[in-house]
């Protein structure tokens, strides 16, 4: 009755595909607060000044998310641990039967007592952002002196407690030349490293973060030459990780959703079109299936896929409707970073084919 040993297509992927096709969200990302103890200049958060959900309201939201049948609940921010009741909220996620993932900058987990409290929550995974291989780079990006040391200590603390940690690095102009050193640091810490080449505008459309975007020449080489080495032999992706099949560009409004600190239900973390407020509906399922916003977004993801299929490099795009909308005003407009990405990835796959043919000869 467990399908682990069943031959044939990956049974996990089969179920994920079913959920995707039926728009049954397995994931919910909750931005608990916009408060943060870092000052990253590339941060996309745009607090509106509205009142964030109270802890009691977050508990109501969690109950609705769990009743909706979400499996994976991610707590993020801002910095999620800056919420005064983070641990009570995270414990409630677990009590309600959801798997817990935490996104953190690690600063507070540098304290062994905090790390122990995290471990006690039995999280599925903690993802920690690291911005450089040395304090000068990391601290320059977080604009908090000493943050590098605290983050590394956090990873070591969680390692000692047996918590699964994944490291993430948003690639910027300041750290683009030390990615291999960052990778080596992750290896020394015994953890998987994920690099993210997409720096987005702020959620309110302000373009300031783009000033820190890695330069185009670097990005071409990253996608075309370095990606595999930096990701333990994985080939560069040719579609969004949240797209389960080829019918839609991504899982926005389908595979999961995001709650912002005010309780707004968003189709995903990138495409920030409020579909309603979790506190104003009895059942999330009603909002999910009836919202005109979500239905439009699902259609847009299908149209985006069809549009990309017409593009010469269409099979090599990692395209984000949210970035497109935020950067150009049009969720279907192909933005420059996606163009560069697709072109370089195509070149990489073509070179691989040539290499294989040469090897076979």
């Amino acid at each position: 009755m467990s399908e682990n040993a069943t031959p044939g297509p990956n049974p996990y992927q089969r179920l994920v595909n079913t959920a995707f096709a039926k728009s049954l969200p397995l994931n919910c990302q909750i931005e608990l607060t916009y408060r943060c103890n870092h000052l990253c200049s590339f941060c996309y958060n745009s607090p509106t000044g509205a009142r964030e959900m109270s802890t009691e309201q977050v508990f109501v939201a969690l109950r609705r998310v769990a009743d909706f049948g979400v499996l994976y609940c991610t707590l993020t921010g801002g910095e999620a641990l800056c919420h005064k009741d983070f641990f009570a909220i995270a414990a409630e996620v677990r009590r309600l039967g959801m798997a817990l993932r935490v996104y953190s900058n690690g600063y507070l987990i540098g304290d062994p007592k905090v790390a122990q409290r995290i471990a006690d929550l039995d999280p599925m995974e903690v993802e920690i952002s690291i911005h450089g291989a040395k304090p000068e780079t990391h601290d320059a990006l977080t604009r908090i002196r000493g943050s590098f040391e605290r983050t590394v200590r956090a990873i070591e603390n969680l390692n000692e407690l047996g918590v699964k940690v994944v490291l993430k690095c948003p690639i910027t102009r300041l750290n683009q030349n030390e990615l291999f050193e960052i990778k080596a640091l992750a290896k020394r810490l015994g953890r998987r490293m994920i690099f993210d080449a997409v720096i987005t505008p702020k959620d309110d459309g302000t373009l300031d973060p783009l000033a820190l975007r890695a330069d185009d020449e670097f990005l071409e080489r990253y996608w075309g030459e370095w990606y595999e080495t930096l990701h333990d032999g994985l080939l560069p992706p040719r579609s969004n990780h949240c797209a389960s099949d080829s019918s839609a560009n991504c899982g926005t409004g389908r595979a999961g959703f995001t709650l912002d600190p005010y309780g707004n239900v968003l189709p995903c973390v990138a495409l920030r079109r409020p579909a309603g407020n979790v506190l104003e509906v009895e059942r999330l399922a009603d909002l999910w299936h009836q919202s005109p916003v979500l239905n439009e977004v699902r259609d847009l993801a299908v149209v985006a896929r069809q549009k990309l299929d017409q593009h010469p490099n269409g099979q090599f795009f990692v395209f984000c409707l949210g970035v497109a909308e935020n950067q150009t005003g049009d969720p279907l407009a192909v933005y420059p970073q996606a163009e560069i990405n697709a072109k370089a990835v195509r070149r990489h796959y073509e070179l691989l084919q040539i290499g294989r043919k040469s090897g076979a000869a």
Partner: protein
Amino acid sequence: MSPGEKIRRNPSTAFRPVADEGGLVVIPKRSEVKVLNPVGSRIYELLDGTHSREEILTILVDEFDVTREAAGADFDGFMADLREAEMLDEAGMNAEGGAR
């Protein structure tokens, strides 16, 4: 396991049935996700601390095309698999109340 004993899944696991096609179980301690077929998923759903083996077999015979004998054999094998994977609440057996 005594005949009337109520069985409970490990509350530290996270479980979600997916349509009628099966279910996913996350085991955080092992960093594993188990995939269950439709019958396994239904059983795991019923392991909420309010059903005994016999009660679950009655439901399975009612809902699936299976004899009680065959269901019983499959159920016992499945319980052994779950126990090995630490997916049962061994300490909580017969405890009051259910789990979500």
